[in-house]
């Protein structure tokens, strides 16, 4: 008998800032929507372990989408995007996620993202606290400079390999080879978007003087960071969470910057802890 996964894929039209996107997402489960953002220059297969986690999908509707220009979500349908340099901004990125949640008619979803997805989770909590029942920034920080580099797209080097091997050290040596190599493989597919994503990650995203404005009572924040993450270290995560009202921070041992993808078995324990912590922080909703 064929082994068919319960995970299904769909496309949904999303319009934001006058740009029309045909967005691909994978989903599985029922319950509270848990909307998952992959890391920069990558795609939704990073969430493959979570999407097939029976324990979590029994209580959560896990939705892992490809951001436009990643995976199966094309660049805009209605613009000559090839005539412009791609530079993702916090404003467009945050509006896109809200528009996607609107298109899918999600009520009080939890948003979880890793790396540049962790940083946008913080931006969402700041900008749209009324739209989310909580956010889980993974490997995020108030500010993460240093990765907006020309090397990701340099015509004299193999961009696919530079992106993939350039992020290799972000993973922990303890993570299984097979999962680290899958993550490497995903990164070999996304070099054209990676640098533009990192414009948001390392340049446009800067919440150093805004963390106190995040309404962490209305939109609780639970941050998680792996100890092998050299870009946003556990100290960065701790520092960020400590400045957000009602926020918590979880340090993850023996794992790195792509925890859901490099070692889901380790990540899932911390994720359950994060979801439990988030449940304990829920405000009464009208």
């Amino acid at each position, binding site marked *: 008998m064929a082994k068919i996964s319960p995970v299904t894929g769909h496309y949904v039209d999303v319009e934001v800032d006058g740009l029309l996107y045909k967005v691909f997402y994978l989903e599985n489960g029922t319950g509270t929507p848990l909307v998952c953002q992959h890391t920069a220059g990558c795609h939704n297969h990073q969430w493959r372990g979570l999407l097939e986690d029976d324990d979590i999908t029994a209580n959560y509707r896990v939705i892992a989408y490809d951001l436009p220009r990643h995976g199966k979500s094309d660049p805009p349908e209605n613009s000559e995007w090839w005539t412009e340099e791609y530079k993702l901004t916090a404003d467009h990125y945050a509006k896109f996620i809200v528009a996607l949640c609107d298109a899918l008619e999600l009520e009080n979803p939890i948003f979880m993202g890793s790396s540049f997805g962790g940083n946008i989770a913080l931006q969402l909590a700041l900008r749209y606290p009324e739209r989310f029942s909580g956010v889980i920034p993974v490997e995020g920080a108030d500010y993460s400079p*240093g990765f907006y580099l020309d*090397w990701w797209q*340099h015509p*004299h*080097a*193999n961009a696919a*390999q*530079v992106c*993939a*091997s*350039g992020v*290799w*050290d*972000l993973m*922990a*040596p*303890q993570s299984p080879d097979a999962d680290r190599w899958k993550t490497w493989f995903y990164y070999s597919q996304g070099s054209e978007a990676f640098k533009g994503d990192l414009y948001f990650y390392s340049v446009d995203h800067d919440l150093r003087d805004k963390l106190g404005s995040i309404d962490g009572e209305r939109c609780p924040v639970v941050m998680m960071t792996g*100890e*092998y993450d*050299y*870009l946003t*270290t556990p100290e960065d995560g701790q520092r960020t969470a400590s400045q957000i009202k009602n926020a918590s921070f979880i340090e993850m041992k023996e794992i790195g910057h792509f925890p859901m993808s490099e070692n889901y078995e380790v990540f899932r324990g911390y994720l359950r802890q994060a979801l439990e912590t988030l449940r304990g922080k829920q405000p009464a909703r009208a």
Partner: protein
Amino acid sequence: MTTATRAPAPADWARAFTEATDGDPEIQAHGKYFTCAYLLDMTDHTFVVRVVSGKVAEIAVDPGPIDVPYQFAIRASADTWRNFGVPVPAPMYHGIWAATFQRDMKLEGDVLVLMQNLRCLTRQIELLRSVGVPV
């Protein structure tokens, strides 16, 4: 952080690093164009590693000033390298990017050549986890 293992003699290390590289399945599967020369500056000892088509052609041990040319350099303190030379390195000693962002490692010279060879070079540096370091 230091490790308790005794450092191999530089010449012995050079032989072991050569054998590990030339016998590594990943480098040999993908190293057809892995060709470059780089300086490993471990403070107490320096090495110029010259790789041609994925095989180590020569390792110059403690070369004199302007003696052996190289394209880029990977420099760090002996202590940092000692932390690379263990089976499971502690955080921030698990790769050249990590140690460059968070510790005292420096990537210098023609970094484009480093980037052009990044896939195999990353693997080659990881061989230090089994070969150890001579400092």
